[in-house]
């Protein structure tokens, strides 16, 4: 999933200066699972905003809404009848959802209510960790399904650097060395010969080196 973190309300507040009606807009997918922008967080932010506006003596109508997905035009269209009632939208979806909302409603100011961090998963309740950087050319078959792009601080593709010690990264004892994880995994699979194989210099053009990316599937295109 896409993992995001809630922005501090002090960062959001100045953007809403002068607004008389604000929609806090959540998303029911990734950001709900990582507890940054689902219905619950929409409610929390809306209440906090109402309180602050009242303290400032401002009369601001704060609406709440959570769409099934903000990265999907079909669900975004559900706002068409109500959006005009608001001067501004604070979206709690990931950066994709925020931009899609803005693209759908070009004359409406849309502000981010979260910081979108990475693609990852929950290690335990309240702890999320990065697993993939969307590099566009997946290497996991060669690395025992442990990603060196996302999990090695230096994105090394052919074994650990000199800073790796006792299975930990040179960044510190709380960071696992991705290459230690790869080696452990390859050993468990009985595939250490994969470790000996050199991975060619990476083609970063599939990553961001070639500019913003697009996937086009002619077979499913309408």
């Amino acid at each position, binding site marked *: 999933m896409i993992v995001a973190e809630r922005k501090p309300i002090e960062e959001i507040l100045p953007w809403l200066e002068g607004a008389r009606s604000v929609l806090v807009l959540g998303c029911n997918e990734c950001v709900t699972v990582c507890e940054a922008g689902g219905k619950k967080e929409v409610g929390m932010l809306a209440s906090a905003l109402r309180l602050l506006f009242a303290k400032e003596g401002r009369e601001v109508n704060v609406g709440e809404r959570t769409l099934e997905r903000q990265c999907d035009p079909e669900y975004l269209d559900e706002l068409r009848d109500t959006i005009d009632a608001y001067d501004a939208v604070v979206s709690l979806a990931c950066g994709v959802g925020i931009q899609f909302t803005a693209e759908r409603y070009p004359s409406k100011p849309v502000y981010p209510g979260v910081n979108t961090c990475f693609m990852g998963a929950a290690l335990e309740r309240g702890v999320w960790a990065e697993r993939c950087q969307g590099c566009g050319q997946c290497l996991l078959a060669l690395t025992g399904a442990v990603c060196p792009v996302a999990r090695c601080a230096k994105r090394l593709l052919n074994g650990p650097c000199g800073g790796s010690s006792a299975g930990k990264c040179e960044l510190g004892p709380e960071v696992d060395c991705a290459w230690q994880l790869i080696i452990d995994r390859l050993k468990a699979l009985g595939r250490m010969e994969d470790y000996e194989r050199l991975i060619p*210099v*990476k*083609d*970063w*053009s599939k*990553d*961001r*080196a*070639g*500019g913003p990316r697009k996937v086009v599937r002619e077979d499913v295109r309408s």
Partner: protein
Amino acid sequence: MSLKEKLAAGEFVLLAELEPPKGVHVAPMLDHARRLKERVEAFLVPEMHQAVMRMSALGAAFLLRQEGMEPVMQVCCRDRNRLALQGDLLAAFACGIENLLVVSGEDPSLGDHHRARAVYDLSALELLEAIGGLERGRDLAGVDLEGAPRFFTGATTQAGSPGRSAELEAEDIAQRMRAGARFFLTPPIFDPELLEPVVRRLDQGRQALVPTVLLLKSLGMARYIERNVPHIRIPPETIERLQRAPDKVRECVQIAVEGIRALRSRGYPAVAVATLGWEDKLPEIVEAL
């Protein structure tokens, strides 16, 4: 007199672009430079222009400096992060390189290593500010330097490019000036009129602009640019002129010479000549001026 002093004294300055070699064979580059030394005030050394891998501008500029010539070293945001940029700037100054041209750099996808990962840790504007910081004796982390460099720094502008707003270009120039840029290199100019809308909007008029004159190599190249390079405009008269010319190469040289003369007579303080590998034509151009 240094480049900075000559410009301050109001002397017309001619700059010539010299591409570093793709390899370690530096003799041809140095030969070109020696032949031009008397007629050209400074040499512009690109940093892997068009994202094509070559000897770095730092190395080539240092070699020119050793020969007693004045280089203007390009510093490019594409390939280095803030550590490398600042470290190389300190090295450059210690090697006697005092003129800089800050550029963003073209995307690697346009060059010969299109799988490379671009860096862009700093933008050109931020790099200009970082250079100002180094000059004040501080790096980007706020740590004091043991000895501060002193540069004469320029930047690029898209002034004269069709399809760019003159207001935005003028604003961009003003912003980069506040960040420390003292001169602005334009894209290749074939029609000086195109610069006027920006010139009119600048407080200092044309005084900080350094137009580029590009030596065409053939009719095909002119047509290609006209069709495919949106930021360069070649007037139809120039293309027709090349079409009619019996000796195309001579005509190309003549067009460049006339271009430099036209810009000089309009009062630009300097002109940069780019030849894209045809440096051996430079003596002919400067002789004819």
